[in-house]
């Protein structure tokens, strides 16, 4: 069975994917493009991590997938956010902000 523990990296990737998909139906390649663009080339997601993550999120019912024509005319697998996915995104975002805040304040005090 896949391990259920979510380390920082994996949890973060899931959150980022959810966030990007929340902006509108999108296929896997576009997700990786978008992530690179928005982060200003700081974050580059490996395909080896992206697709298993997408399938995991779909499997958990946070993403829904359907096949439809892409901008290039070829059929692609488009992901959209489900209601549960939206909820998950909200909790993860809140968690992340709390964590970032906590880390930030520690770093500030340490100065």
């Amino acid at each position, binding site marked *: 069975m896949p391990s259920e523990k979510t380390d920082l990296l994996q949890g973060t990737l899931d959150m980022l994917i959810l966030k990007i998909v929340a902006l509108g139906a999108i296929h*896997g*390649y576009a997700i990786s493009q978008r992530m690179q663009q928005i982060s200003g080339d700081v974050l580059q997601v*490996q395909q*080896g991590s992206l*697709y298993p993550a997408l*399938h995991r999120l779909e*499997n958990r019912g946070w993403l829904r997938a359907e096949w439809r024509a892409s901008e*290039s005319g070829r059929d*692609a697998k488009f992901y959209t956010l489900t209601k549960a996915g939206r909820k998950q995104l909200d909790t993860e975002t809140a968690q992340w902000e709390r964590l970032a805040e906590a880390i930030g304040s520690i770093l500030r005090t340490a100065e």
Partner: protein
Amino acid sequence: MSWMDTLFRRQRIDRQLADELEFHIESRTRDLVETGVPAAEARRRVRMEFGGTESVKDDCRDVRRGRFIEELFKDLRYALRVFRKTPAFSLAAICTLALGIGACAAVFTVVDAVLLRPLPYPEPDRLVKALTKNPQLGVKNGPTSLPDYLDWRDSGVFESVGIYVTDNAVLSIAAQSERVVTATATDGVLAALRVKPLAGRIFSTEESKPSLTPVVLVTERTWRRRLGADPKLLGGAIKLNGLSLTVVGILPAGFTFEGDPELWMSPTITGDETSRDNRYWTGLARLRSGATRAQTGAQLDRITQRLAAAYPGSNRYWGVDLVALKEDLVGDTRAQLLVLLGAVGFVWLIVCANIATLLLVRASGRGREMAVRAALGASGARLVRQLATESLVLVLAGGAAGVGMALAAVSLLREYGPPDLPRLDQIHVDAISVVFTLGIAMLTGLLCSLGPVFQTRGHLPGGALREGGRGSTGGRRRRIARAALVMTEVALSIVLLTGSGLLIKSFWNLLRQDPGFRTDHLLPCFLSLPNSKVMENGQYRKDRVARYIDAVTARLQSIPGVQHAALGMPLPLGGGGWQMWSKFWVAGEANRQAGFVHGILQSVSTDYFAALGVRLRSGRIFSSVDRPGTEPVAIINEEFARPKFAPRNPIGMRIGIEDDKRTYEIVGVVDSIKSGGLQDPAPPQLYLPMAQQPVPMLTAVLRTVGDPAALSHTVQQAVLSVDPDVPAYRIRTGDQLLGRSLARRRLLMTLLSSFASIALVLSLLGLYGVLAYGVAQRTREIGIRMALGAAAGQVLAGVVRQGMTIAALGVIAGLAGALAMTRVLKDALYNVSPLDAGVLLLAPAALLLVALLACAIPARRAARIDPVLALRHE
């Protein structure tokens, strides 16, 4: 997406996954080409970025829920491969499991059918038999009389109550006459059973009064099989016992009753129905809703007390017991079946222990394989699951074979089982027994896989790799676990061995019992004159019966190969027939009430004792002198003569019989015949000459020169030639009669002995396996010892000591268990104490002797180890 989807649409999903990744690669390549990279270089770069599509696909599949099932299939394939690689092990394991599970399933099926399944009537728990008792006469579970029944009925303590007697009658269809089993019953019996006729109606209360023209109910099966499903039968007539009787109803398919009667008749006038002392009916009743057996019994007791006061001559000391119908039907079978169930449970436990030992031994041998897999990244849970899967595959294969075995065993039992096993015809493998078998199989799998699974847990790959490499014996704890399993097997085997030893000894004791007559070259059969032949205007025509008896005796006597032919009633060894119990006293003795003898009264023809081979002790047997009109004479058996007359000589003394004004002169004393089973003491018997006291219900006994079975057809023809309406039926040889009376004990003994043998073999195989494995694992160690100077004899003794310690500990535990458990056999034993010293000594001795053999082979192998070769081992 459910795991079913993943399982059955795996191909489609794989294709989609490939498409998705392909789309990514294509898009990325296109984008690169647009930025000016040459196409070939772009494709190469994208592939590098991707780092192998197959591993990405694998990771994607991994996150899917159906992976569990997929892995299960992988495990199954792996397990099958493992089993193919070790066919001997697999076959042995599957056969052992089949034996254990099959035996369990077969015995459970019988227990279920006989003990557990409810009777096939509505609300069966409210059905009771009303059976009489008379402590004074030693009567228990006895019959009742018609007038007593009427008092029960009119008291209203039951919802419905009736009386019945199973008998048989000659059914004549066209020119064919055949004996069929019948039940004569009052309406209350059928009302209590709540049977709804398929067509027509059951008896009315009016019809249930004894009459000259009883009415008949036909079972659906007989209506179809014998009467061609004739719809005109209802309201029509059938010829029964020479009388033309009206059929008023057809009983539904599947309706059965004790003895499986084909026809039900309302009571016929016999002339004795007003006598309260004429007890031959069995009472059957349905309790009132909400009433308990105890409450109703107490109410009934008040009625019987009233009757005893009103009719002291016939009813004093008589009481009634209410016995649940099912309890009455099952009787002493319950204890025997539970013993069998326990025994088969032991065998099953031994099988589990055996398989567990086998798997343990194998798992130790596979320590290295497991360690390699763990090192390659398999999680502990994953390995455990794989081992569990392997055990399950084994068990399921064994279970399937076991179900086949159970089916075969059950059909064998139905065919050849003891005829007196209640509900024998209802034994079949049904949903409950299949569920039970599956449950047993799963439980077996769990138990068997526990050992190897525990062993796998907590293994550090490094340690296991090293251990496997050195070929060690797998640690102290595991050695103890294996020894404990084998010890348990030995202990359980000892319990079974003692149990079967006791049964064998008791069976042997029974076989040595003299039945009082010779069963070889004997051919008994039944022939009964129907009422229509012996009654005339309500008058019993003795002369006609006597004439028939003379004719049929002469005819049978004239058959070539028949030495003696005689008529009598009933058959010994519980072979059936009317047992007429009566009270006898010595004429002239003052105290009639205290001094009477309660025994069987029967009329026999002249050659009866010669035909059965009963020895004459003193005096003479009947002869042609004893005719109607000559001095009334009687012969008594030893059981009558010794307690009553010894040391006086009974010959010449006169005997009085209840309800008979005459007295009879004793002319002879014969050996006692066992009238019931061989285990039951012979009752006192008083014989009257058939010529003086002819009876219409008869058995013929023939002593033949050659094989009696060969004559059965001739006998049938001979009897029919005297009167075509009176066929001979239930023709069996004397040996069959004896076999029948022993059938149930024989079955119990045979089954328990075979279970014990299986247990013995399995536990010794277990012992052998563990020792042989230990020796194989310790080859190097033994080699070193021998190189250092240990003698072959020492090595040999070491292995034998190890094995015999396990066996001895098992034997001690087993003996303790046997002492505690063999008392459940008490009722099944004859002339053997459950603590019989011989058996309790012999069983362990036999086991230890064979155990020594099981130790000897691996011990010899150990002693022959060549140090030089051993050190190079592996």
